[in-house]
């Protein structure tokens, strides 16, 4: 696999199930066993009901653009060739929100409310990153 020049997220213990699923090209988020709220990223307890019990569940992978920005400044050399590029906040059908990238759409064609679906990009042998594409 070619050298990947952007930051690769560390697989922290609490996020291990997320990265394991992503590697299988499946999107999972935590669901609270107390109240059923879906949440992302991983948290130790539910901010809604304070339950510590949660399970990782597969979600539909569909949702909509909640908001987005267009980054013009280079904070990391891995993104230098791409500026300006967009970062999107996706609201999944199940309610949880995720920071991500929208592939196949130019930054200025992105609209809030656009329906999107998850796609997967294999970064390294260990890490696969969920991104989104127009649904």
């Amino acid at each position, binding site marked *: 696999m070619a050298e990947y020049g952007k930051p690769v997220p560390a697989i922290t213990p609490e996020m291990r199930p997320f990265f394991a699923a992503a590697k299988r090209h499946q999107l999972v988020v935590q669901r609270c066993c107390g109240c059923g709220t879906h949440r992302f990223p991983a948290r130790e307890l539910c901010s809604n009901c304070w339950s510590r019990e949660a399970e990782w569940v597969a979600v539909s992978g569909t949702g909509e653009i909640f*908001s987005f*920005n267009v980054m013009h400044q280079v904070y990391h050399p891995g993104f230098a060739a791409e500026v300006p590029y967009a970062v999107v906040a996706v609201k999944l059908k199940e309610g949880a929100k995720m920071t991500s990238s929208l592939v196949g759409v130019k930054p200025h064609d992105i609209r*809030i409310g656009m329906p999107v679906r998850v796609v997967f990009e294999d970064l390294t042998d260990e890490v696969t990153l969920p991104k989104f594409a127009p649904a």
Partner: protein
Amino acid sequence: MNLRSQTAIAGLGITKQGKVYDYNHVGFAVEAVRLALADAGLRREDLDGLLLNPGLSWGEAAMGSFQLQQAMGLRDLRLSSVMNAGGASAAAMIQHAAQAIAAGVCTTVACVFSDAPLKPPATKAEKKDGGGSAGAYGFARGLDAAYGQFGVNALYALVAQRHMHLYGTTNDHLGAIAVAQRQWANKNPQAQFYDTPMTIEDYRRSRWVVEPFHLFDCCLVSNGGLAVIVTAAERARDLKKPPVYIRGMGQGHPGGDPGETLASGAVLAKATAFTMAGIALSDIDVVELYDCYTFTVLVCLEDYGFCKKGEGGPFVADGKIAPGGSLPVNTGGGQLSSFYMWGMTPVSEAVIQLRGDGGARQVPGAGVALVSGNGGILSTHSTLVLAGAP
């Protein structure tokens, strides 16, 4: 117990601001306190309280207030603490000091902010590594960094974009705020953009940092220090400068997702502060709002009730917040065009206006000032009502 006007700001110290490298963060803090004591006509032996809001350069240093106490050679303080609610800390520190003084815990408190994130101009070799304010404020964690989302600018941009989507707010609306504050800064010799005009065309042409924010939508990262001395109102009346009475104070920390609510904690903080002060919005003569971004000003004008939710854009578009307008906002140029000392920038400008020391930018008859602080991503909020008379 109503604390209305039981305490006052008796001293103000502002060091040189901006791209200045006279001191590190500790040195700027000491210099700010020295200036504030001199302004009040007090000696350092008069201080028995010290509150510090540490800027980024203080790092995660626990006990920064003790570090500052040691640096200043202060003995036997009866109140000492670090406070950090981000940009809401300044007004919150002053509230804490006022409460402690009114409760008889101590008598004279220095409330301090300092930061020195800017490094002297880099050599060619150093420049290749980036750095500057992007380095200091460009932090990111795990997944955000993987998607290329760095720094606070990007997070505020998401909230602003939703406001634009839902309410039709435009970049020219934000630009109207930037231009108005620049006009105020043009009249403020301490501002980094003193005597440097900017038109809406200049704003439109300024480079994008992260859309929807142009460069001139973002505050000026600054080196410097700023301190105020808080003491009992009765005592302040015998000191060198006219007291600036702390008539009302409040905080509001909304929780939840700011992208959903598009609101700050101003609604709650205002209710507490205005009730204590016994005032209404129509009693406010000058408005000093925390302006990490033009967008924050817009949201807070809505949340304080100067206009309805979502109508901030049209509200600012006609120039009413600029010099000569009906609602003077951020009369020193604010953090966008003067200097960025977190919440201390709006506090300091209110003190200057209420003392009548504003020079070319003085708002005639400024008797009551609204001061706000805002931290996180619209996460924390504090309000002060300051006044020239009790």
